[in-house]
């Protein structure tokens, strides 16, 4: 039987798992569907990471280099897992890539296939993401911030007024995404800070239900956004975004004032939540591991075992488990690596 561990997904969690396994002397095959490593932060052109505002490309670059430097890691780019046969500790994964199909024998599998940004077209509220060029999502603004080119797509000119709408696709019983996506309050506040840094004359608003910046983010992002960068937080749910003249009319309820509000904006940024990625959904099917009711991978014994799936020999980490920040990804990636390596080694010892 093989002691190789297959890590499916080369984003933050998968990279941490792969590096950790290799550093401990394990043998790893890292399977990634894109032709680059780094996952969503790289694919979606994230500018700076929350909360320290380090460049996403630089930070992920370090993780990628660390994996590339390990002799025990075989990286398969542009590959996807199409079938899984056998049982732990003798899995046979079929992977498909540019060179054709190949079978990988492995003793354990770590799923790190991550999340997808919620598509605002699915939402019940009328935000007009597909109707108005100036309505964007968090990751769209990340891409512009990275380029240092935040402009209104309709005019190509910098905005004078920009707002964020929180909880789009999260905390929503109507569409079934009843959970909080954890990072959007922090990310929106971080992006708000970046906009104020790049466009000092632009007014920035955040419309929220609750502001959730737990732990150290309180003082790393929440207060600086207000005290240093004068981001304006307004408690109230936004229901519609319509066009009025050459501006956008943002309509909703101002909870503090107890009345409806209508405010003109140049750009609206929807703080879209996290949903399981297509990869996470297909891995749960192909590997036969139970998803939870939202489609993320179900963990067997929460909260103290954060990575064991319903199937022996298979673990999951990162945002494939649910909304996660980067610290979660690094931590669960490492936890999965530890458990997977212990499992395959125990098996080898037992057989020997």
């Amino acid at each position: 039987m093989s002691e190789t561990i297959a890590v499916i997904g080369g984003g933050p969690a998968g990279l941490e798992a792969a590096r950790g396994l290799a550093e401990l002397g394990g043998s790893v095959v890292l399977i990634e569907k894109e032709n680059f490593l780094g996952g969503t932060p790289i694919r979606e052109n994230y500018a700076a990471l929350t909360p320290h505002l380090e460049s996403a490309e630089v930070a992920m670059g370090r993780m990628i280099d660390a994996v590339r430097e390990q002799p025990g890691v075989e990286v398969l780019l542009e590959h996807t897992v199409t079938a899984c046969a056998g049982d732990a500790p003798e899995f046979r994964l079929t992977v498909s890539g540019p060179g054709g199909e190949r079978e990988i024998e492995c003793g354990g599998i770590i799923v790190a296939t991550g999340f997808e940004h919620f598509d605002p077209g699915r939402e019940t509220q009328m935000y007009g993401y597909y109707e108005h060029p100036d309505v964007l999502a968090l990751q769209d603004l990340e891409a512009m911030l990275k380029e240092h080119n935040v402009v209104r797509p309709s005019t190509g000119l910098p905005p004078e007024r920009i707002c964020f709408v929180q909880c789009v696709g999260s905390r929503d019983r109507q569409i079934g995404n009843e959970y909080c996506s954890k990072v959007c309050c922090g990310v929106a506040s971080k992006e708000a800070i970046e906009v104020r840094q790049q466009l000092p004359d632009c007014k920035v608003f955040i419309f929220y239900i609750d502001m959730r910046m737990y732990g150290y983010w309180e003082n790393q992002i929440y207060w600086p956004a207000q005290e240093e960068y004068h981001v304006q937080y307004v408690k109230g749910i936004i229901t519609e975004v319509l066009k009025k003249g050459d501006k956008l009319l943002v309509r909703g309820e101002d909870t503090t004032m107890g009345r409806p509000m209508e405010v003109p904006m140049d750009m609206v940024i929807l703080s879209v939540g996290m949903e399981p990625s297509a990869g996470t959904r297909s891995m749960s099917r192909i590997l036969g591991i139970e998803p939870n009711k939202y489609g993320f991978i179900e963990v067997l014994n929460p909260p103290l075992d954060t990575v064991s799936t319903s199937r022996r020999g298979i673990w999951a980490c990162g945002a494939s488990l649910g909304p996660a920040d980067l610290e979660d990804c690094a931590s669960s990636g490492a936890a999965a690596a530890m458990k997977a390596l212990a499992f395959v080694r125990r098996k080898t010892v037992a057989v020997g």
Partner: protein
Amino acid sequence: MPIPVEALLKKKEHFERGPHDRRSEDFHHELFELEEQGEWIVQRAPEPIVPVNTKFGNVKKVPKAHLWHHKSCGQCGHIPGYSTSIFWVMRKLGYDYTDPRDQTSCTAWNYYASATSNAAAQAAVAIRNFATAYESGFFPLIHCGTSYGHYKEVREELLKHPELRAQVREIMGKLNKPMVMPEEIVHYSEWFYALKDEIAAKQVRDFSGIAATVHPACHYYKLVEGDAIYDADVYGGQRTAIVTGVAEALGAEVRNYSTWFDCCGFGFRHILVQRDFTRSFATLRKIERMKEEADPDVVLTHDTGCVTTLDKSQFAAMAHGRNVGVPVMSEAQFAALAMGAHPYKVCQLHWHSADYRPLLEKMGIDWEAAWAEFQQDLKRLEAGEKQYLTWDDVG
């Protein structure tokens, strides 16, 4: 990998609803299952059918012919040209129908005015009308948006609550009527949308110079929101396509305004007991915004209450010097005018409050001559030649 603005815009060009959108459940599964279990008869939509898309991707069947006209109390009572136009267009397109004398009100007026009875009574009224249609062999077509939204809700309640079905079954037993639920609950504006190309083919008046704003009825698309027509070619599939689809097919220019999703303000309860609220809403939030931002020649909508309040609230605001004064009508009357209908004998615009004459002039209609013709017909009635005008008199 820098992303230019063009790439972002391209990404947002087209929205496709994924298979895992939990709200794509199709109520038809439960509908037919209950039929198999003997709970009710599902009246099938008769051929010929036009399939249309609804909000979450399910296909809805709109029958073209063999329709049982479930009329609107408010239309027949206050906007008779609305009903007449629906019948007139259907006759012109050559589709058979029946205009039943034994239909009852849906009683949703009651419900929305907070004066209603109880769920079983409301549901029984609906099933009774459906059973009557079924017995006639014709398929129900609902004229009023409120009836339509209410019936959709009744369907949901009956699908989900066996105890309610049992209560209604008992009532139907006493009335000696079967338990019937139609395969689809179809609003007349869905029929107009489905047949918009056939209507446009019979257009004789040029509407290319007409600018319209559209008011979509809350009771059409906000109640049981999945069952409403959405079309990728209209508003990119992001807003409901009825009325706009028809107006565009007739060559009119549909203009946008910032309170598109707002209710007209009719309100049922408050139009009775707090009418200033209704009038303020209709004129300040809808009509004034439309005039300011879009300056339309006509406001088009597709529900009895919406036509009523948007049209008939304007005089009160005008007395206060507000920026109002734009004609309001249903897309049925608009389509009828496009097809050459008489503005008074068919569309009965003399029942409308806001001045429609400039619009008729823009459409190339000599309303003075039309009015004279109508007066002639009225003289014949006064002379006792007949009791009321019939289809023979309208052409």
